């Protein structure tokens, strides 16, 4: 297939986790200072009275979470966090502590308060699907001096446009309060996320977003780098649930790959069930039934590209999920579906075949490093779909650190017309083998001739 055009807004990986790190995420760290250098007029506007009040109230519950290289005492990444119990429990993002959770032999975690007191912390529990981590001070005596930030009750809904305040330590510059607005939940997100119209920066990850009364609405997690003030928060309900579950848990046995695997197992089951239950869109091609998923938790972008040199005309559709699960070294857990519809009447049979084959060849599978995933193994054949002949290829790769989870890719080319055809590709990441089979079959069986023929 043709490689995606960069002009496509939906295809750009524009989501950045708001973690400030020199090692983990250079792209995030690089864009942030460039923006920070010239002070934006709205950002430098005087903080309102209530922002000052909210910050003063929350200041003592705020912490910066530093991941420190063992034996070297230099930080590899910094994020934010906040106290949620008098016993020293803190909430932050999983991606803030991922290095320490997955490579504990090389990293330590340290919390730093607004008045500069440092204390070692340990991980009690992770919720990787919502990108949350529950931490606790290693030395409980130090916790006596902390108050906890209260969670806003779920029953009290916020109205769109309501003022809210995001706190954290952007780019390790110093603790800050950022004013913004609540804009409801993000549309077509697989897991609920709050759309916060405010400027999150790297380093604020894991910090709290508070209402006017200083209660936690959400946890800073990510922002879009291709937009302005389009930021995302994890709803507070997931953080309070994590606290309730893990309050008395023993510190997590590290490295945390088994926890990640277990939670991904749950995710892939939910994803598979929801994906299959939603069915397919109708009328996607005049001749064939071509599988295109409904826009529930996926976004489909289409384009039409007539040839300028009297060659192959084609239309394409790309459906991708915004939600991806962060796994420390990579993100995974998404489904994508795309197809291209080719019209080669101007080319003739032989030329069309050559171009059609070229497009079928132009597919790539090796995305991850060899220590993370095996090479693909494929099965291929001609398939009969109620009389419609297809060439089908199914390739799978196994995750090495997430046992029994696989990436599955399905390639399909219709083979009934000499001068036109449709090629499709389906990808599901980190699914179990039975679910990979189920999804592949579900996708293949969605191909057929349109009934009226």
């Amino acid at each position, binding site marked *: 297939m043709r490689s995606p055009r960069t002009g496509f807004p939906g295809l750009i990986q524009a989501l950045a986790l708001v973690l400030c790190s020199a090692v983990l995420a250079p792209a995030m760290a690089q864009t942030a200072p460039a923006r920070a250098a010239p002070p934006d007029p709205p950002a430098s506007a005087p903080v309102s009275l209530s922002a000052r009040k909210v910050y003063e109230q929350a200041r003592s519950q705020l912490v910066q979470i530093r991941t420190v290289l063992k034996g070297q005492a230099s930080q590899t990444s910094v994020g934010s966090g906040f106290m949620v119990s008098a016993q020293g429990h803190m909430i932050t993002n999983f991606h803030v502590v991922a290095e320490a959770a997955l490579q504990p032999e090389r990293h330590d975690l340290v919390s730093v308060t607004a008045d500069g007191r440092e204390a070692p912390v340990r991980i009690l529990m992770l919720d990787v699907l919502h990108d949350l981590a529950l931490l606790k001070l290693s030395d409980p005596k130090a916790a006596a001096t902390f108050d906890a930030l209260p969670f806003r009750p779920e029953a009290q809904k916020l109205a769109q446009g309501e003022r809210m305040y995001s706190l954290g330590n952007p780019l390790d510059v110093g603790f800050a309060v950022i004013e913004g607005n609540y804009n409801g939940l993000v549309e077509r997100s697989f897991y609920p996320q709050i759309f916060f119209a405010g400027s999150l920066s790297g380093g604020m990850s894991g910090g709290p977003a508070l209402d006017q009364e200083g209660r936690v609405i959400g946890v800073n997690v990510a922002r879009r780098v291709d937009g302005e003030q389009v930021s995302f928060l994890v709803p507070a309900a997931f953080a309070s649930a994590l606290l309730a579950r893990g309050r008395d848990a023993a510190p997590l046995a590290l490295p945390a790959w088994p926890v990640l695997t277990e939670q991904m197992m749950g995710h892939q089951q939910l994803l598979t069930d929801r994906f299959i239950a939603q069915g397919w869109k109708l009328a996607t091609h005049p001749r064939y039934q071509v599988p295109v998923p409904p826009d529930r938790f996926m976004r489909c972008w289409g384009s039409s590209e007539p040839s300028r040199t009297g060659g192959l005309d084609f239309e394409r559709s790309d459906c991708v999920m915004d939600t991806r699960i962060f796994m420390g070294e990579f993100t995974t857990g998404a489904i994508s579906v795309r197809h291209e519809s080719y019209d080669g009447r101007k080319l003739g049979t032989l030329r069309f075949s050559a171009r059609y084959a070229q497009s079928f060849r132009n597919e790539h599978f090796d995305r991850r490093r060899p220590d993370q995933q095996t090479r693909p193994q494929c099965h291929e054949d001609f398939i*009969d779909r109620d009389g419609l002949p297809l060439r089908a290829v199914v390739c799978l790769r196994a995750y090495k650190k997430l046992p029994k989870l696989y990436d599955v890719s399905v390639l399909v080319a219709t083979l009934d017309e000499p001068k036109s055809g449709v090629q499709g590709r389906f990808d599901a990441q980190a699914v179990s083998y039975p679910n990979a089979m189920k999804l592949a079959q579900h996708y293949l069986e969605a191909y057929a001739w349109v009934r009226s023929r």
Partner: protein
Amino acid sequence: MGAVALIEVLERDGTPRHGVAVPQWPLRVGRALDNDLVLDDPHVAPYHLVIDRDEAGAFVQVGETINGALLGTQQVGAGGRAAVGDAPLAITIGRVHLRLRLAEHALAPELRLDPTRSLAQGLPLLALLVLLVGAMEVFNTYLDTDPDGFVRALGSGAISALVGLLGWCGVWTLLSKLFTRQGHFGWHLRVALIAVLAWELISGATQLLSFSLSWPWLSDFKFVLGYAVGATLLYFHMLAVEPYRHRRVRQAAVAMALVGTALSLWFNWQNGDRLGSELYMSHLFPPALRVAKPVDTASFMKGVAELQATLDAKAKRKEDAGDDDSSAEGGGGDDD
């Protein structure tokens, strides 16, 4: 009349440069001027060797030399001695190649001049080859370009094909000229054209068959045939560079094909954990050329299910080899 032997000084390729009839034994060879055969090579001793005859027959007696002499395949040091035998003897002293033929040696039959000319000869065949390869290039260009760009692509394609072909044949002609004093340009051109034609036919046929019969392995291992064609091409080119060493050249060509194939297999294994070069069969032809029967989705999925064992084994094997993650894997067991 009645020379007892002939001793010749040879060129590197075996053609005689200079011959001396030996009227009587002994024959002394060396750098000193009072030898019967004077060789002005600094690696030759003043009295390097003597060829003589006794009751047992002709023999070579090596004199005071540090380099010794190579008699046939046998290296003989100073003071050594070896019989000439009943066939002409190749003698190498210093950097000079000699050949000794005794009067009683049987005369070998006359060889045909320039054995390389035996393959397809003549202008009509050359014209046919040029025509076929040209037509094929036009067809390939036609397949690869859009209607609007065809003529322009044809022009640039023709120029690059011509430059490539003439450059390739030119280099071989130069080699032939260097080693045999004849260019054999026509021969090299024919060899190159036939090889191009053969490769295009083999390549097209394997792709078509692998599509038509749904035999992915055929195009997957097409490169083996590629090495065979390449080695054959080199073999025939070399025949016009080393015309008297057929066997050596054939061995080299076979070795090259085997080594190339082995390296490619190894590379594919390193690169993709598999021996073939194609992850999946991607050669699509017009639907009418499909012969293999399509299967239903359920039986197709059975084939997919069979991949799991391989994938799990590969995922496991690399885990064990991993260094810093052994503790992670230990924890992974109780989580399942």
